[in-house]
């Protein structure tokens, strides 16, 4: 092997090692970024506050019949705001299904959205959402000031909002239910409380 060929091989080895190092660093930064952002469901300071009475709505469901949202029924309600065109919402549907099975004794899961009835009934059939009450109401979304999806609101048995926030995964939905059990509004509030002590 000539010196030129040898130097070529050595250059390739270092070149590939360097590119892989850059890729690994970029990935680590990406992972770190996701860890830095709050792990619990993010609450945004809009709409009725946690602890206040939830606005009460009586709405028709896509499956037929009416449902009362936000009233003191003695059971908790998990209002899940979604849209047929949001990929993360779709991904959370199986999680909601298992969650509603698991928490059946105390929590009712209600899906909420707004928009064209046709689009939603198609979505309702395609995703087999019969087990859930599915309501369409722009007023409901306005009342809770929903600006980003998927958004979840937990209403306690007495009709008071006990937790709410933007949810992107199973842990965040569960964090809302745990927040309700612990009596804190969100993980951020919990951390703020514990840090003060």
């Amino acid at each position, binding site marked *: 092997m000539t010196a030129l*060929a040898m130097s*070529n*091989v050595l250059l*390739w080895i270092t*070149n*590939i090692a360097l*590119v*892989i190092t*850059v*890729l690994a660093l*970029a*990935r680590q*930064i*990406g992972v770190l*970024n*996701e860890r*830095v*952002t709050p792990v619990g469901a993010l609450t945004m300071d809009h709409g009725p506050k946690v602890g206040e009475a939830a606005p009460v709505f009586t709405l028709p469901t896509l499956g037929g019949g009416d449902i009362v949202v936000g009233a003191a029924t003695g059971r908790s309600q998990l209002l899940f705001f979604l849209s*047929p*065109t*949001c*990929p*993360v*919402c*779709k*991904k959370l549907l199986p999680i909601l299904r298992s969650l509603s099975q698991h928490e059946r004794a105390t929590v009712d899961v209600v899906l909420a959205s707004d928009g064209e009835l046709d689009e939603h009934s*198609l979505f309702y059939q395609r995703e087999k959402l019969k087990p859930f009450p599915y309501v369409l109401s722009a007023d409901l979304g306005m009342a809770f000031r929903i600006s980003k999806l998927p958004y979840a609101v937990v209403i306690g048995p007495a009709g008071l909002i006990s937790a709410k926030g933007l949810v992107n995964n199973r842990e965040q939905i569960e964090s809302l239910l745990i927040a309700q059990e612990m009596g804190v509004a969100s993980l951020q509030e919990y951390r703020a409380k514990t840090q003060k002590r």
Partner: protein
Amino acid sequence: MDYQVSLFMLGEVARLTLAAIFALAAIHAMRDWTMFDGIVEQYRIAPRWLAMIAVRSLPPMELAAAGALLVPMMSRVGASMGMCLMALFTGAIILNIARGRASIDCGCGGVRGQKLSLGLVLRNAGVMVALAVAGTAPTSGPIDGMTVIGVLCASVALIALYFAVNQLMRNFQQFSAISSRSRS
């Protein structure tokens, strides 16, 4: 160095790199159909039935393009297929940026949550230039130790570089999101 040999090596590098990129994108989409379905749908460029067909046919087409690029006799077909796919993806991205819907998930293979941006359009333009090279460069040439080492190493380096660039673009979006949040 012979001009034809350089072109041959360049073509081989382009073909290997593009085949890997297309194959990895296809595998990524096929591993999570539900997510891919949602991603195609939110681009909002086709009625539901057409989008359903697209969801099922795009990943196999990407795989087919990747396979064809690797076969010397079919590399031109593979490059043309890849070009059509890239034109379709880039068109969809430009259309949605123009509509002001840049905040949707790009669904670009490998990185989750990457939003639409001009950087993506530039990246796709780069991929299309590589496709043009892959389709036009000679498919036969001398195969000796040095060409093999050069072609293989350059391809591995370029594939890793492509994913590094994707990840860095995603990181950049996250950083700008964080800095705008802390400013407000």
